[in-house]
């Protein structure tokens, strides 16, 4: 029942521009970007394609990540932001705010 409309939608949906760029079909990628983005966001799809090309080139030279890298250079800053944002979920008053019922119930 449900797969049918999804199959139809998939058939008319545009191809992934990233996949097209990886396959070297740049003109089609531009067309896909034009169909996927909002009109004002994609006034220059050629730029976006060249951005994707460069990203894909750079990704080819990656090596396996390991834990010590988290504490070096700019990655240390990025790790600390993530840790800080996670930790501060406890520190912005949530622990008392979620006890609102406690104040309702409290006998005055």
């Amino acid at each position, binding site marked *: 029942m449900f797969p049918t409309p999804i199959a139809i939608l998939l058939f008319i949906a545009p191809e992934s521009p990233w996949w097209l760029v990886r396959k070297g079909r740049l003109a089609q990628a531009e067309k896909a970007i034009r169909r996927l983005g909002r009109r004002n966001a994609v006034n220059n799809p050629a*730029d976006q394609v*060249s*951005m994707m090309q*460069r*990203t894909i080139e*750079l*990704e080819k030279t*990656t090596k396996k*990540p*390991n*834990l010590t*890298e*988290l504490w070096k250079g*700019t*990655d240390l*800053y*990025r*790790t*600390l*932001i*993530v*840790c*800080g*944002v*996670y*930790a*501060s*979920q*406890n*520190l*912005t*008053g*949530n*622990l*008392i*705010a*979620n*006890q*609102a*019922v*406690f*104040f*309702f*119930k*409290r006998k*005055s």
Partner: protein
Amino acid sequence: MADDTAFALGLATSGLQWIMVIFSWVLTTYLGRRTIYVYGQAINCVFLVALGIAASFGISTASSNAQASLGLIVSVLFCLGPAPASYVIIAETPSVRLRPLTTGIGRAAYYLVNIPCIFLGSYMLNTDKWDLGGKSGYIWAGTAAICTILSWLFIPEMKDRSFREIDILFRRHVPARKWAKTEVGVQDDE
């Protein structure tokens, strides 16, 4: 207030939180993550001080209703702004390669702070311990203020940036406040 009314209000809070998370989808489309996160925290900070003030002038039905409503407002606003924005920031900040590791370490940091905070929170509210009640709003407002200042100083705006641009901006050591105005050319590597 009767027990079952209090319980119903607890349920209503959860329902409102659910709706606010849905509103946050709209909010993240139009506002930057940094904007939502920093200002959301600052606004909650003000409401927490208000909660402390509401608890500071004797015990009355009016005061306990005020405290409860302010607590509800804080938790609902948290679900509209800082909570969803924080997960966006967590997902966007690490480099693509290190993302799974960074997020794991971040979650560990969350529990490292979460466990002592649960103890502290319980001590503050329990009547046979510190019995601060709503006045603990002052303490949480203090921690929230510290978080607000730190996030204003250090969390960059990553809305509408590709992963490549984010990498470059981190490598350039652009101060967090200036990210939104910095341009990265198509051919730039550093």
